[in-house]
């Protein structure tokens, strides 16, 4: 052990490092209190968060690997996986373009009603998923505003793939904008102004200056947006019609299998979604650890 350093004698005088403050005896608890609180917190996390996760995989493998594999290879399960990937592949890029446009408008300019606009962008987060689905049924369903017109032109939105895409777009609407707005707010407009003053046009400034500045934040937003898009249940369940092999996404397929008491198959499909969640969490932690400085302040550790 090196002797303690008197930081005030250093030139220039320095405050003690943060860890020293953290171990300062007067502002922490007795060891037994610390131990008790830590144990209680970790026990709560294990019972309430980790146990459900573990049970997904054990239930899925209850009948062995062969049965697990067989349940994933059924045509209905494969169709559900394909549909989930398709829906995410449409909804996420659309919300990506919107998120970038909204963040550009909100952070590079000053205008009246900006805070109100941000609140409106956030609205889908506070709407119940079931209501998020219902609003499209009221618009495009058989008895909806546009129902008769759509029926006359043989266009199917509700109980078809377009409805699922719309509902998914609604519930994942704010994710990317929400991630980019605080980040671009912090970055300001100096970099873009410098590029413009050096003769770049608007697009060049965007592609060569803004995009490199926000790329990690963008990826972070896309990651969360995608996780929600692939996992959405309530909103999609209302508009899908649950047609096997056609309008069944993975979460909906889990429900159908579960309600048929086909538990192994239900948990097998669920385990794929749980795997997606784990990958999302791992990438998210990695981004926070590696590129924390290039994410919005709320995600820095």
């Amino acid at each position, binding site marked *: 052990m090196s002797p303690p350093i008197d930081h005030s004698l250093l030139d220039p005088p320095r405050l003690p490092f943060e860890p020293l*403050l*953290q171990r300062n005896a*007067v*502002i922490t*608890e007795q060891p037994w209190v*610390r131990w008790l*609180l*830590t144990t209680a*917190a*970790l026990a*709560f*996390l294990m019972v309430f*968060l*980790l*146990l459900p*996760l573990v049970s*997904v995989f054990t*239930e899925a493998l209850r009948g062995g690997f062969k049965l697990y594999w067989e349940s994933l290879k059924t045509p209905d399960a494969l169709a559900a996986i394909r549909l989930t990937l398709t829906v995410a592949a449409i909804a996420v890029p659309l919300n990506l373009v919107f998120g970038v*446009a*909204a963040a550009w*408008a*909100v952070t590079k300019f*000053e*205008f009246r009603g900006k805070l109100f606009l941000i609140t409106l*962008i956030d*609205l*889908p987060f506070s*709407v*119940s*998923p*079931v209501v998020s689905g219902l*609003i*499209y*049924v*009221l*618009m495009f369903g058989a008895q909806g505003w546009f129902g008769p017109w759509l029926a006359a032109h043989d266009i199917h939105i509700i109980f078809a793939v377009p409805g699922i895409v719309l509902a998914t777009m609604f*519930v994942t609407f*704010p994710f990317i904008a*929400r991630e980019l707005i605080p980040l671009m707010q912090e970055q*300001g407009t100096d970099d*873009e102004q410098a590029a413009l003053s050096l003769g770049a046009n608007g697009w060049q400034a*965007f592609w060569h200056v803004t995009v490199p500045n926000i790329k990690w934040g963008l990826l972070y937003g896309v990651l969360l947006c995608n*996780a*929600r898009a*692939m996992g*959405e*249940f*309530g*909103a999609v*369940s209302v508009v899908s019609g649950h047609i096997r092999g056609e309008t069944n996404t993975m*979460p*909906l397929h*889990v429900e159908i299998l*579960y309600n048929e008491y086909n538990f192994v198959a239900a948990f097998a499909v*669920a385990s794929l979604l*749980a795997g997606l969640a784990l990958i999302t*969490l791992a990438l998210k932690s990695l981004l926070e650890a590696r590129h924390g400085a290039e994410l*919005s*302040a*709320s995600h820095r550790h």
Partner: protein
Amino acid sequence: MPPTKHPSPSRSPIPGFGLTLGYTMIYLSLIVLVPLAGVFVKAAGLGLDGLWPILGSPRVLSALKLSFGTALIAAAINLVFGMLVAWVFVRYEFPGKRLFDATIDLPFALPTAVAGIALTALYAGNGWVGQFLEPLGIKVAFAPLGIVVALTFIGLPFVVRTVEPVLRDAEKELEEAAASLGATRWQTVRRVVFPAILPALLTGFALAFARGVGEYGSVIFIAGNLPHVSEIAPLLIVIKLEEYGYAGATAVAAAMLVISFALLLVINALQAWTNRYRTQRHVEPALPHPVLQGAGA
């Protein structure tokens, strides 16, 4: 917000104001605003005479009561344990901290249908947890208690992630001052630390509550869904819709939307309170809540 740099967007040297704002407004209107307004137009079309019999019916009332009651209890549980978890993760070091920290966000990332069937399997009479509770006469799965368990799972990260940054930024010098003036550790925590994190705690509580009221996927598997007993309001909307009771579904949805928007105002006010406290102390203001997000509700 930084001070206004450009008095008028048209005089800003940065291009693209019209394009990006125009696109934002059109996309926002088409996907969010017009469909949401549709619910209110449809509900208004029913008139008060049409709305009251639906909203006042015993089944709807007990569903709303159940949704609010269970969300309130779950948010209260998360208030206590969320604060405990945030405290332990900010103040203490222990092995595996990083890994545990990542799992706190699990409810945001795990699709709710998956959470629903997993919790049901755990708390059913023959499940890992249920087999110990059943002999004690505690029935969790297929009972209102199961709804509380599901909503506790869903709501935990809201409290933890709202309290953590405030707790991290809290000035330790204040605690040292309290200690040097003779306060016991418990007095310092109660009188100095707790008031500082109270606004954030309440914000997290409100966020968890708001999420719980509308939650569907994780609840319907574990609830049992008996009318008047364990049938939540969002499920009632689905049932009415399946019976082609569009009017009924719209009425319940409009009621839930009004309540959600009221909650949103409360949350915004609480966040403003949190930020005011933080800016007073020269800390970067917490931006409007970053993680009102979740996978597959």
